């Protein structure tokens, strides 16, 4: 066991707000977001890089925040589910998931919303296959995914406006 582990000073911008913190190197990004920044919308599901409940956007790219150290996010811009709504208005993707019943217990939903965000940034008019590939890294144990795909399709329409 190495002794006297030094904390590392990092600055991150999360949902547009700048934070400066000191973190132990082994602090996972998801724990940093949830515990240090008190943004508990990002969930921990499997904690083994599988389920995608912890998905956030890091400089525009979706990542599993349980599989990164907070210190690696130094200087990065992060978007979590809390950053989707603007001025009390749900994001068009969130609206689509509500309207289409694209969730049941809701535990996986923050991750699926962020994966949908990533998909629409790369593929504004997704096919069925695009949608399946887009959330292949997000596990939902309630819905059977059918309403999730309906919601993702509706989200694409909403975002295009």
């Amino acid at each position: 066991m190495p002794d006297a582990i030094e904390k590392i000073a990092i600055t991150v911008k999360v949902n547009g707000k700048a934070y400066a913190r000191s973190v132990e190197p082994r602090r996972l990004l998801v724990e940093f977001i949830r515990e240090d920044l008190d943004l508990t919308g990002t969930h921990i599901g499997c904690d083994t890089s599988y389920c995608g409940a912890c998905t956030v956007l890091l400089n525009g790219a979706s990542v599993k925040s349980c599989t990164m150290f907070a210190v690696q996010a130094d200087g990065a811009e992060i978007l979590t589910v809390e950053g989707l709504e603007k001025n009390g208005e749900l994001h068009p993707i969130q609206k689509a998931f509500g309207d289409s019943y694209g969730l049941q217990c809701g535990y996986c939903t923050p991750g699926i919303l962020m994966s949908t965000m990533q998909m629409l940034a790369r593929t504004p008019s997704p096919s069925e296959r695009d949608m399946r590939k887009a959330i292949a890294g997000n596990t939902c144990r309630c819905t059977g995914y059918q309403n999730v795909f309906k919601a993702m399709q509706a989200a694409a329409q909403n975002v295009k406006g």
Partner: protein
Amino acid sequence: MYPRAFHYHRAGSLAEASTMLAQLGDEAKLLAGGQSLIPLMKLRFANPAHLVDLNFISGLSYIKEESGALRFGAMTRHAEIEQSAVAAKIPIIHDCAAGIADVQIRNRGTIGGSLAEADPSGDWATVLLTLDAEVRATSARGTRTIPLPDFITDAYTTALAHDELVSDVIVKIPPKGSAGAFLAFKRTAPVYPSASVAVQLTMEGDICKDAVIRLGCVGLGAIKANDAESALRGKPITGKSLIAAADAARAAADPQTDMRGSADYKRTLVAALTKRAIEAAARRARGEQVEVTHTYA
């Protein structure tokens, strides 16, 4: 889940990373994409005392075409390769990049990290061993080029010295009439394949002049299916030669029974994947645009 506490070192260049590795000794590990290492650390299967982070070194992520080859920077993410028109000049490379795990993992994981880890279930080695590929390794002592077959020496073992790092991966663009395909069978996207097959064919008209076939996830490395290759060489790709190659690949596979299936089941998968990959590669060699996708259970 938390890894054992470790000291964090942020390298500013490959040379600095090499010096750090030399100074920190055996207890130091490199952190590239982290999509294998971090889960292993969380499970405490890997407990490095020091991590040298390569993610802040600029200029290590690129895909270039030069002198008949594609050159990939070690820190090029799978997603960048998946989306690259340059990388798609070798379609089997796109097959590989687009099929690794899921979007989030592909956004982080790197080609250099995957090769340096040399996990026998990793996709890159299986695919690149069907091509003419080499790895450039660099250290504070200099740079050397290692052909990929010599780079991977065993499961989880490479020819890299402790202070050496992968700087780039160079893959020759196959000549006209030569094409490949890579197919895997996976239980779900985020997991490693139950079995995978990479095929590279060189066709002259209807006759297969040369074939390279590698089997992934069914042995302690990407198995070269020599008898399956011989079953195709000098012959047209017909039902008969396909079945002979598939049977030979099934015999060459050396899988373990595990949570992904029994050894017999995996051998059956290998035979089916071999057939499909040969068919796709043959069509591509004729100049057809063929999109392939892994099979998900």
